[in-house]
């Protein structure tokens, strides 16, 4: 989606800055924001560019580096960790053949760490874009990844 189209949906008020950035970033296959786009948003809301940059660098959802089509977030906080019998982090790193923070060569997946996802009753859990997967086993992880890979080829 073009940035203009996203901007049109919001009043020109600073209070909508985070909403605008979230919606626009989500619409891009690379799930990232560029310097020029931030300038355009700053212009639209009539706030200093530095302000938009400060917001983007503060919130962990925003990235200025291109990322994969699917962002996989795993939790490493206590409730997930103590229920984690497969080591979700290492399993994902092995299955995807990347380290946390990296993107697969086919630009399909980026692996990220997230603070607690609030799914402690289904621990261990991950979030892929806007979907949650709970009570993970190695088998389940493999199946979920296969699904996303299939979706991509379709």
């Amino acid at each position, binding site marked *: 989606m073009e940035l203009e189209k996203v901007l049109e949906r919001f009043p020109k008020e600073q209070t909508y800055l*985070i909403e605008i950035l979230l919606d626009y970033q989500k619409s891009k296959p690379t799930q990232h924001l560029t310097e020029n786009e931030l300038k355009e948003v700053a212009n639209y809301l009539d*706030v200093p560019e530095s302000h938009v940059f400060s*917001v983007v660098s503060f919130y962990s959802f925003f990235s200025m580096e291109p990322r994969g089509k699917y962002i996989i977030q795993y939790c490493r*906080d206590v409730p997930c960790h103590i229920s984690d019998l497969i080591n979700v982090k290492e399993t994902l790193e092995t299955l995807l053949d990347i380290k946390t923070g990296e993107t697969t060569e086919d630009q399909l997946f980026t692996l990220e760490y997230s603070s607690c996802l609030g799914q402690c*009753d289904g*621990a261990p859990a991950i979030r892929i874009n806007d979907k949650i997967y709970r009570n993970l086993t190695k088998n389940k992880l493999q199946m979920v990844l296969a699904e996303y890979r299939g979706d991509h080829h379709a």
Partner: protein
Amino acid sequence: MLEKKLITKHIGVIDPKSIFEYLRLDGYKQAERMFDMSRMDIHDAFETSKLRGRGGAGFPVSIKLMAMAKESTQPKYIICNADEGEPGNFKDRYLMENNPHIIIEGMIIAAYATGASKGYIYIRGEYDKSIDVMKEALQQARQKRFLGENIFNKRFDFDIEIRRGAGSYVCGEEFALLESIEGKAGRTRVKPPFPTSKGLFGKPTLINNVETFATLPTILEIGGEAFAKIGTPSSTGTKLISLSGNVKNKGVFEVPFGVPMRTIINELGGGPLEGRKIKMIQLGGACGPVIPEYMLDMVIDFDRFEEFESKTGAGAIIVMDDRQDIFDVLKRVSDFFQHESCGKCTPCREGNLHMLKTLHKFFEKTATEKDLSLLETQARVIHQTSLCGLGQTAPTAVISSLHYFRFSFLKRIEDRLEEANYAEN
């Protein structure tokens, strides 16, 4: 019956996506009835109920409501804090996904009681489903004219907007949350002034937790006095408990205050896993104390929790069995705060980093007695000098562990000495 369902009574009975089913069970009836009550009577009900905030700190709700009602500046704002990011807590998600209208009804009641015209629900960005369910529920409420202009055909306007978080735990702290809604980085403000006098956009603002708003309709329904009879004298009503970790049944349970934690873990949680023993629990979430098994007879009560000088009242119980290493747990907790510190004040930004380094030494069995006293100092300084609740409660797990599990720290130091001796010989 251990569970007492006041605000979760609809769950499992109604389809959360249908306002009609909520209405069928007398939903929105209290909001409608309230317009025929005097504001004084409404405030009396909340005051006699002795309701305390459910977000963790347990501040008396009627004091905030009254302070906000007295402000003459307009507009005034109502904010529902749904930035539930404390590890081990998921009860607000449970409520939003399964009973969204009770939260909206509670916000309408708070708005009328305080004369606010605009509301926000600030939901953490990770809660995609909660955001969808709440959006849909708001739309339905608007169609029914429970939100918007002249709601319930009375001369009162009130509407609610959703704002999403973008992956920042500190935004659950009330001033950081305000900054975030204003379109800024979530860095706390120096207080006073408090939000009820100068909050969102500098206007009077009432901020409460999801569960707190969801409790307001029940108080009007059964009356403040009847509500105050539930629970304990200092903590009235019911509490949603997020039970997680090494137990058979994890989940959210609504219980009256005053129930011992051991009863919750064994009867609702089904106890520890087969062949395992409970070693410790963390109470309230990452910001809460780690306490040993023998203290599980302690009851759920704000006043009882106060000794930990932490915001433990949100109701999380993370159960850890005999396989868990306390230093691994502390390292993860400390890592969490180091990652989520907003960076504004030095004790939190730098202190958590250094505390994590010291904890790492204990984890790696390279710590000395000097590290033990260093850790104590670091924890105390962060607790006493940080600007907001995040920093002040970041070392709670460490401080409590130093007290209840001191032998574990000493054992690690001894282990290092033994290994060193062995290497020498």
